[in-house]
């Protein structure tokens, strides 16, 4: 079997595996549900996830040790990950082939020539890592934004919110099965990146991908590479014909660009000149990434400015967005932003669909991070569910035990995890404002004993009579902020009972009560 055939099999395999792991990311024990499928695995394999979170938190979340395997593979063999494993890369590869296959040879060769702009991705990498560089602490000048462009979180997010949702539609499950706010933007971005391949094959991989850049830097240590022997080479340039990385295999080869696709072996008209062997290639090599020192410094400086600029709005200080409710088990906001890679696994796995990717409303730093939207979905945040924390690859949401979530089995003193607190809007609530009876929120409150109780009142009506009303009142010592009341409130537009992040467990500074008496 030719190595290129093996590569295509590997690409198809990993793309299928990736898609499958996205499909099964729903709580349950059936074969097509979560069971024990390693739904975080591709994210854990991603060295940029590991490097980014290691910079912001000065520690490595246990599952991310998998990334070491990819780092070792890259050090030994070069960017095999890009050419053989990366599911996003495979999509680009296929689309690029689709766009190129009917074009004349000359144009195909031109499309795969090395372009100086391929150095841009190193700038992007430098900026993203620089933004993550300064540690979390009092000054909080680090922000983890690698997830915006890191291909694995990007493709995971795109699959979870857009591709699979379209699949749901196609399968006739209807548009109402799952909603994701802002999925349009995520899907459009994905589509645009995929379609760019029709113009330039593997556009994203060559010019944008920060993970490819990272692996390019690491891969230059490899003892082997594509080698070209000029003596036998007629310099026909056919090796560029299907070159994935645009790495100039005719030589001197751009080592950090080569994706180990091995197409040059197939395309070379003779057996001899292009091969795979010990470095250096006789035709010469360029080991260093093509970014200039000046551009690199500019990127780092720009990256360093990102976090301070992001924090100027005060969203992690006094101006914290009370409407942004983080899922149960989330760590405090500064560390959350230091860990979340915006992959959307938690959102996908949430059984009630109440968890949503944040838009720009809570500041662009929090873009696509998970937040509760009690108007979407089938119910609020279920008091006995811990799925989101277990789906999180980086520990932004802690993998809670049911005991800790529910405040029992040794966690009685801490009480159940609170994500926020419900507030009755007495200007909109039927019995408070409009003399109409309604006790939906009290009835539906899942906390035991109930966090909402009813206050009896006899109210004089406009026509001189009286009406007996039961008005809901929330007990902050009991409410866990699950939002089931908000979800069910009959005030359909702006609900008359709404949850905000006040009193959330994860930040003592957001507490309402001085003491939380255990129940």
């Amino acid at each position: 079997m030719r190595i290129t055939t093996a590569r295509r099999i590997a690409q198809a395999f990993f793309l299928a595996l990736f898609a499958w792991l996205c499909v099964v990311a729903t709580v349950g024990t059936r074969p097509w549900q979560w069971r024990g499928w390693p739904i975080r695995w591709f994210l854990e394999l991603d060295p940029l996830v590991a490097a980014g979170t290691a910079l912001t938190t000065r520690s490595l979340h246990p599952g991310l040790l998998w990334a070491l395997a990819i780092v070792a593979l890259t050090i030994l063999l070069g960017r095999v990950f890009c050419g053989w494993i990366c599911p996003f890369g495979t999509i680009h590869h296929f689309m690029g082939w689709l766009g190129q296959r009917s074009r004349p040879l000359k144009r195909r060769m031109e499309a795969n020539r090395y372009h100086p702009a391929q150095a841009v991705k190193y700038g992007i990498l430098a900026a993203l890592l620089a933004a993550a560089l300064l540690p979390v602490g009092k000054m909080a000048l680090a922000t983890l934004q690698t997830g915006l462009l890191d291909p694995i979180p990007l493709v995971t997010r795109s699959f979870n919110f857009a591709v699979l949702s379209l699949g749901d539609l196609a399968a006739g499950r209807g548009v109402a099965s799952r909603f994701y706010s802002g999925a349009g933007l995520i899907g459009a971005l994905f589509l645009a990146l995929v379609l760019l391949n029709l113009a330039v094959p593997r556009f994203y991989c060559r010019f944008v991908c920060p993970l490819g850049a990272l692996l390019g830097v690491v891969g230059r240590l490899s003892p082997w590479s594509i080698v070209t022997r000029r003596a036998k080479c007629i310099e026909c340039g056919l090796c560029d014909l299907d070159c994935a990385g645009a790495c100039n295999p005719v030589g001197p080869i751009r080592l950090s660009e080569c994706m180990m696709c091995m197409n040059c072996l197939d395309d070379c008209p003779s057996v001899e000149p292009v091969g795979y062997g010990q470095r250096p290639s006789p035709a010469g090599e360029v080991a260093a990434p093509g970014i200039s020192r000046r551009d690199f410094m500019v990127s780092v400086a720009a990256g360093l400015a990102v976090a301070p600029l992001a924090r100027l709005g005060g969203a992690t200080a006094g101006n914290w967005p009370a409407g942004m409710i983080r899922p149960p088990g989330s760590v405090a906001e500064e560390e959350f932003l230091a860990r979340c890679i915006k992959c959307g696994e938690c959102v996908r796995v949430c059984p009630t669909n109440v968890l949503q990717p944040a838009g720009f409303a809570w500041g662009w730093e929090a873009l696509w991070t998970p937040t509760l939207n009690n108007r979407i979905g089938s119910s609020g945040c279920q008091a006995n569910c811990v799925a989101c924390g277990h789906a999180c690859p980086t520990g932004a949401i802690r993998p809670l035990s049911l005991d800790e979530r529910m405040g029992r089995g040794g966690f009685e003193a801490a009480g159940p995890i609170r994500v926020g607190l419900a507030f009755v809007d007495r200007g909109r609530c039927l019995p408070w404002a409009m003399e109409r009876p309604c006790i939906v929120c009290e009835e539906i409150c899942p906390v035991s004993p109930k966090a909402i109780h009813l206050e009896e009142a006899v109210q004089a009506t406009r026509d001189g009579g009286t009406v007996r009303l039961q008005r809901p009142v929330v007990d902050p010592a009991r409410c866990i902020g699950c939002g089931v009341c908000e979800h069910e409130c009959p005030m359909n537009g702006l609900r008359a009972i709404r949850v905000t992040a006040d009193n959330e467990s994860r930040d003592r500074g957001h507490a309402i009560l001085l003491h939380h008496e255990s129940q």
Partner: protein
Amino acid sequence: MSYSKARSPGAGEKAISAAALVVLASVLAGVCLRQRVFDPAVLAASAAGAPAPGVRAQGLLASWPDGLSPMGAQEAFGPDTLSDKIDGKADLYLSAGFVSLKAQRVGLAGSPPAWMEAFVFDMGNPSNAFSVFSSQRRPKAADAAIADYSYEADNELCIVHGRYYAEFVCSDRAQSTMRAAEALARSFVAATAVTEHANVGAEEAFFPSEGQIAGTVALVPSDVFGSDKLSNVFIARYRDGAGEVTLFAARRATAQEAARQAQELRSFFVDDCGGKAAAAPAAPLGASLVELEGRYEAVFSSGPYLGGVHQAADRQSAERWLSVIAARLANGPQ
């Protein structure tokens, strides 16, 4: 891609391709193996439907006898959490087939300091319930004639009701308190329907009444005399001169099984405990005699029955008691 010739790969290339495919196959195998071990979140989701241990459940009784009222919530424990409530004693119940424990403290009206705690162990079946009842029977127990089996010992009342074993532990030994415990026990029995009652009459008949110390018939559920191979054996203690001796008996499904277990127990005494096999020419039913740390053990089987003598003071005593129990089992207990 292959616009030109179909290049024919060399041996090295073929090997590398094959190795890559092997790696893919192992990744696939690993992922498939992994999916069998459920993620904690999935387990939590399936557990969420079940009632949580140690949290408020329905009270022990729907209505309470006069003067008694529940203090606080009822607690519930399963096999995983039993030791949270009774620590090291959990083993005793776990090895006998424990299913669940419900515990409820109950206050007595009129006398504020007096209270009691009811422990209701669901043991799965009446035999298990009898087993834990009999194996921890207190020495000064007096039969109480409540439910299938029952006794009272100072400040405590213990009963077997079908598959339930219940203890009512009082904070003092006053008559009024103990009568309240009895009322509570009777209410529990009346309010709790069981499909099958505990009855070990047939097994009690294994043991002659002469010389038997009252209330010592017990069912040992597992690890009989320390042997992990032997389970579900009835024992009874007898006065033997100045000391005591234990007789044991059990009925097995087949004669072969009884014979095999008798043999296993004998080899346990000899091989595992370092006992010395003693010749027993006069022993009935081909029983084996073992001297162990100065005491004598005797084991035999007869038809489906297995029986013997445990810790007899001397050889004569062992042989004498052996003939008593052997005669009983050989004729079939009445």
